[in-house]
């Protein structure tokens, strides 16, 4: 089995053309990036506002949990059936639009939930000190609460990215491109090597994206918040939604 997968992955013809591995990775990243960017544009300002004012926090946790328990595969099929008849013409948009709607819907809860939690978990003493120094409400938000919330916000983006990359794979089931194509073409042709190669590529892509985001986290989170400049590391805020990655935070 491993021989077949390696054979598929090292064959030169699989690395060129519109059905080659680089093109499929490109498609996969394209679908995923659109969803993450849209989700960020919606969830980040909303999360900052809700976390800062403290209004609607209960509603957020309700919505977050409700969306989490929806089966993403069912949601995908539902939106394909709902939206495709509304789009005329034979093009990729028929499948791309419903897929993006689902991917955004799946990315929203982690980003929104973690942003609200991050802002709310900001040290009350730091917030009071900032107010005492004469900062305005928005200065407190952007100069104290946001930097303190960054680790949790990026954790939320990482969970969202993983969820989106995984579900983008299933989107190939409804005729979209991306790495899932190998899985479902392989399944249809009873070519296990191709299926397994697709699965390996998806797993590697997920790991690489997560690693890159971890790097971003290291670069933009202030050392004063991440605790990297201290000799003794104190435990960070724990949340069930966060995938534990950095031993330093754990």
């Amino acid at each position, binding site marked *: 089995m491993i021989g077949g997968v390696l054979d598929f992955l090292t064959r030169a013809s699989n690395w060129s053309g519109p059905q080659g591995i680089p093109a499929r990775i490109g498609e996969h990243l394209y679908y995923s990036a659109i969803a993450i960017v849209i989700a960020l544009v919606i969830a980040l300002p909303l999360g900052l506002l809700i976390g800062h004012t403290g209004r609607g926090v209960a509603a957020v946790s309700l919505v977050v949990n409700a969306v*989490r328990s929806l*089966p993403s595969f*069912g949601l995908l099929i539902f939106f394909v059936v709902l939206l495709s*008849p509304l789009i005329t013409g034979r093009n990729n948009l028929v499948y791309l639009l419903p897929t993006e709607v689902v991917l955004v819907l799946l990315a929203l809860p982690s980003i929104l939930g973690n942003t609200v939690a991050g802002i709310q978990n900001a040290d009350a003493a730091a917030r009071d000190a900032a107010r005492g120094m004469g900062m305005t409400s928005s200065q407190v938000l952007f100069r104290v609460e946001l930097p303190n919330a960054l680790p949790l916000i990026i954790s939320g983006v990482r969970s969202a990215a993983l969820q989106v990359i995984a579900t983008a794979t299933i989107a190939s089931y409804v005729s979209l491109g991306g790495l899932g194509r190998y899985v479902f073409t392989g399944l249809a042709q009873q070519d296990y090597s191709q299926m*397994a190669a697709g699965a390996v590529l998806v*797993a590697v892509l997920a790991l690489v994206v997560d690693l890159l985001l971890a790097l971003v986290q290291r670069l933009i989170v202030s050392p004063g918040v991440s605790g990297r400049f201290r000799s003794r590391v104190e435990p960070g805020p724990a949340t069930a939604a966060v995938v534990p990655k950095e031993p330093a935070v754990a």
Partner: protein
Amino acid sequence: MGYFGDHTAEVLDLFAQHVWLSVVPVVLGLIIALPIGYLARRYAWTYPPLVSIAGLLYTIPSIALFVLAPGILGTRILDPVNVLFPLTVYTVALLVRVVADGLASVPTEVLQSATAMGYGRLARLIRVELPIAVPVISTGLRVAAVSNVGLVTVATTIGTAQLGQLFSTGLQMSSFRSYYAPIVLGIVLCLLLALVLDGLIVAGTRVLTPWRRAGRPA
């Protein structure tokens, strides 16, 4: 709902399959995660690597693990074990950290009291530490159970029968005109199952932690 009336036996069969595929990994996962979580708590140096490995496993998309399972285990492509195995792996990955943190949440004074009362290491673990860790562990268990219900549906794409079958049926029946009945039925049944499993874990936690109710005003 009309579709359910016409296909009652078939849908109930898929539902039973779904229950089995979602519950078995949670139970197996808990049994495996308990000793590993204990290890991570007992020997502090094992905590960072164990938690990192768990996080790494959690990063791999479920569809990838479903597809790779036959290659790793040597099972047939349609064997339900290909679904049970990845979901068990995810559950273990989630619970190892939760178990370790749950055991860590036991106050030092309680541990000292238990030792002073003559509890040995094993008796103290089973009769004092684990019961106190139950609320933390059950929080993780709820996340695992609810997410498993959703993840199981993904296995439809590789041909395993469960409620996700209703989604692919709905997609096929919608090729000319949108037909929502099986899709909506599948989503509703998944939500219902997630809700029931979550409720069962909450109820189990209440039964196992009578002292948490004792102090509360009636």
